[in-house]
């Protein structure tokens, strides 16, 4: 490959990120100098900008190499996760628009901050170096701290922001310490060079193991795996629901992508060193997510624990460390994001007696006045619980295939058992919807046409995945083969 061509490719490679920076800055300026309707305009512009970025990612999906002094890397897996992140951000901006306006929180900074956070995630996903990884995490997290506390006059929102910030900063510190240990013992920060420097040794030295563990702890905090999950329920509950939607849909994807890449790329040869940690994180997340959610009264807390449980399943794919695991996580992430978009688009549009629904019990009798919406909720819940024929089942199915293929049958068995426990609290929502009878309810659903389209698409996806799995499965197969070639 000639040098000139390489330079061209380099330019193309970071195009989505560069474009996103430029566009977001311009949008920020537009918002700053516009007096009227700034929120609405900035929101629409951000959505368009993110769509454009998605388009660029899609165009670049075939290029796979490292660039910018090997700081960043590109492969099919990375491009897939990037596109999921961008699409998830678009969806969460769209579904939360009317909620912000209703709550008089229509500040134009919010979509801009979300865009910047998305930028951080894109950098994080494609990072090929400990330093760029840290930079990505920090860019992502800093904006998340701000949006969590965006409702300034609410004590809860401020509390969740502060809590998230303190714990997040702690975990970043641990992560950074781990990075420095790895640098100290290998002499490099580059993923590829770390792998090469370790290729000749059979056992990692104690220092590198410490570094590895610290980095994994930091990343486990970001994916909110047990025992580093404490922030999740509080932040989910305290933040405004639209921000919770963003938290639930997007940052998980980037964190999962990087924890997969960190384990499988630089430390791919040292499966035995990190697999125990991942297996422990996975089992404890599945079971704590399932058991702690049972007693929850608030929908947002319940979804927080549910997301912790889902992280447990996602980590089974990592513990399997095979092509089936990569395929499983790709399918699982896709379905997980769609399920979250669907459930939050409903929560963000549903009002009972003129206030947004926060408690599970407030949903009682919804099936009488809003049969279609409650049917949708029921489908989402069954899908989250992994009951066939809904899409959620196939996510779990592919993860369990990976586990069985990797001889981790006990992990698959524990996974199915915890899925039975978690089925209880998903069913409890269906129970409230359909079995409880309440007369004094006055449900309104204010849903914008864009989020209605999203919701319909998501529900159709979840219901009819069983008929056409091949489309998505093929994507997973291609990416997993590419990753392990």
């Amino acid at each position, binding site marked *: 490959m000639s040098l000139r061509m390489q330079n061209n490719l380099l330019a193309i490679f970071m195009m989505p990120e560069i474009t996103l920076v430029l566009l977001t800055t311009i949008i920020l300026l537009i918002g700053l100098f516009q007096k009227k309707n700034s929120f609405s305009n900035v929101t629409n512009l951000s959505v368009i900008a993110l769509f454009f970025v998605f388009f660029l990612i899609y165009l670049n999906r075939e290029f796979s190499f490292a660039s910018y002094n090997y700081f960043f890397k590109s492969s099919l897996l990375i491009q897939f996760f990037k596109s999921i992140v961008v699409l998830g951000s678009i969806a969460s901006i769209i579904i939360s628009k009317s909620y912000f306006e209703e709550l008089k929180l229509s500040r134009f900074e919010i979509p801009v901050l979300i865009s910047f956070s998305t930028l951080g995630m894109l950098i994080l996903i494609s990072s090929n170096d400990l330093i760029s990884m840290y930079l990505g995490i920090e860019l992502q997290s800093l904006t998340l701290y701000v949006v969590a506390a965006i409702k300034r006059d609410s004590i809860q929102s401020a509390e969740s922001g502060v809590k998230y910030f303190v714990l997040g900063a702690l975990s970043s510190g641990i992560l950074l310490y781990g990075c420095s240990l790895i640098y100290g013992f290998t002499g490099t920060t580059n993923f590829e060079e770390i792998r090469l420097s370790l290729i000749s040794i059979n056992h990692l030295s104690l220092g590198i193991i410490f570094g590895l563990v610290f980095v994994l702890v930091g990343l486990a905090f970001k994916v909110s795996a047990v025992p580093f999950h404490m922030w999740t329920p509080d932040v989910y509950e305290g933040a405004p629901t639209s921000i919770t939607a963003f938290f639930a849909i997007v940052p998980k994807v980037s964190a999962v992508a990087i924890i997969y890449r960190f384990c499988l790329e630089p430390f791919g040869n040292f499966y035995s060193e990190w697999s125990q940690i991942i297996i422990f994180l996975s089992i404890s997340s599945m079971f704590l997510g399932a058991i702690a959610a049972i007693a929850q009264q608030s929908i947002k807390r319940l979804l927080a624990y549910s997301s912790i449980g889902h992280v447990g399943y996602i980590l089974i794919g990592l513990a399997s460390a095979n092509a089936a695991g990569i395929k499983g996580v790709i399918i699982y992430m896709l379905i997980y994001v769609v399920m979250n978009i669907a459930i939050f688009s409903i929560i963000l549009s549903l009002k009972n007696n003129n206030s947004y629904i926060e408690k599970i019990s407030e949903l009682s009798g919804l099936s009488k006045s809003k049969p279609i919406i409650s049917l949708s909720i029921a489908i989402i819940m069954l899908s989250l619980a992994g009951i066939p024929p809904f899409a959620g089942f196939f996510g779990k*199915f592919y993860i369990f295939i990976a586990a069985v293929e990797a001889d981790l049958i006990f992990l698959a068995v524990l996974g199915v058992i915890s899925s039975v426990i978690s089925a209880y609290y998903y069913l409890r929502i269906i*129970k409230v919807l359909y*079995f409880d009878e309440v007369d004094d309810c006055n449900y309104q659903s204010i849903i914008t046409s864009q989020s209605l389209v999203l919701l319909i698409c998501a529900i159709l996806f979840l219901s009819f995945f069983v008929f056409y799995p091949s489309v998505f499965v093929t994507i997973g197969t291609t990416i997993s083969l590419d990753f392990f070639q």
Partner: protein
Amino acid sequence: MTEWPILTVTIFLPILGASIIFFIKEEETSLSNIKWAALLTSIGTFIFSCLIWLQFDNSIAEYQLSEKHQWFTDFNFNYHIGVDGISLFMILLSTFLTPFCILASWISINKRIKEYMMAFLFLETVLLGMFSSIDILLFYIFFESVLIPMFLIIGVWGGERRIYATFKFFLYTLLGSVLMLVAIIFIYQLTNSMSISELQGNFFSKNIQIYLWLAFFASFAVKIPMWPFHTWLPDAHVEAPTAGSVILAGVLLKMGGYGFIRFSLGMLPEASEFFLPLIMIMSIIAIIYTSLVALAQTDIKKLIAYSSVAHMGMVTIGIFLVNQQGIEGAIILMISHGVVSAALFLSVGVIYDRMHTLDISFYGGLVNNMPLYSVSFMIFVLASVGLPGTSGFVGEFLIIMGAFKYSSLLALFSATGIILSAVYMLYLYKRIIFGQMSNVKLKDILDIDFREKIILYPLIIMIILIGIFPNIFLDPMRLPIELIINNYEFANAK
């Protein structure tokens, strides 16, 4: 081979009906439209399933009318369906009972009729799909999907303790069946095949078979249900609406027996041989213990529920005898029990609709006001006991005959079950139908009306038909059963 996919059409016809109902707005005036749409769909499905029976060739042991389409591109999972002599009657049983379920709910269900009918039709599709799947993953998806409509049917339209009952039902059976999922994946890893017909044989070493067998056993033993996994059944039956109990006892319990024949015997013969004593002991306990429990019940539905467990004990004995009489008897008993227990629950529904109680001591002397009802109930009771000439006799007779080949002690115990069933059923009959009408509330009770006659009389005809001409039902299943037995004996070097 037909040109058009009759099996797929039959399976998805109820869903089509459900989606039509989905678009009917639920109003006072449209309620009867909804009911009629559901009824006609279910009758149409029954007619289609009869067409399948007409096209069925008794001289083929393998699957017939099969359809195979690629479903997943990356794995060898296919949309592969077909019928053989074993599944044929399970399909017919489901399509036969669903119209009665809908008729039985005509008046007694008075809220959310639209959702109710949709749930029932969805349930029918799922059941048909499950019994005709040749792909194990497809089977599993249908097998678990059954839980969704049943959960709603018990939970929304059930009795007072419906929420407890429906959660127990759902979680209990889900816990059983998820282990099957791991077993299915494991089988796929070992053989790279998901086809039930390809996997019939002895493909796994005995050690692996034992684990797989236990995983399958967990789901089928809960489903059928065997003692001691039966505790969900009485709760679910008591709280379910009449039609829910009918489909639960009539078809859902048969999923377990069907699974035992297909998976445990067909795929894991060595492990089945290994666990045979366990099954026999559990079945004998089930027969005697649950019969005695049934005797002590004060709730009619609970009594019938426990009698179901006892009858299913007979079925598991029959299946695991692994001889021609045993398995034939088990399947015939499953069909017969499907019809008879459905008939019993429908009869109970008749008096429940009038008096809204299931307490046995509330009733008494019904024969004075309800002669027609008493006669038909008598026939159902006798069929449940296994009187010669009714359907119950054929199955029980064949099973006891098969049991003699295995051990006369086993035959003795299974015969005890029949005697006990006569005790509790006739005792029930005596308390409800005969005696003085002491309860003043019963004075004005009316005999069965036209709709109830339509429900009960065909069931009587069916019971006697099976009892007198069992060969219509036995002929198609003979060859597939022979196939399973040969394979089993070959694997265990008998």
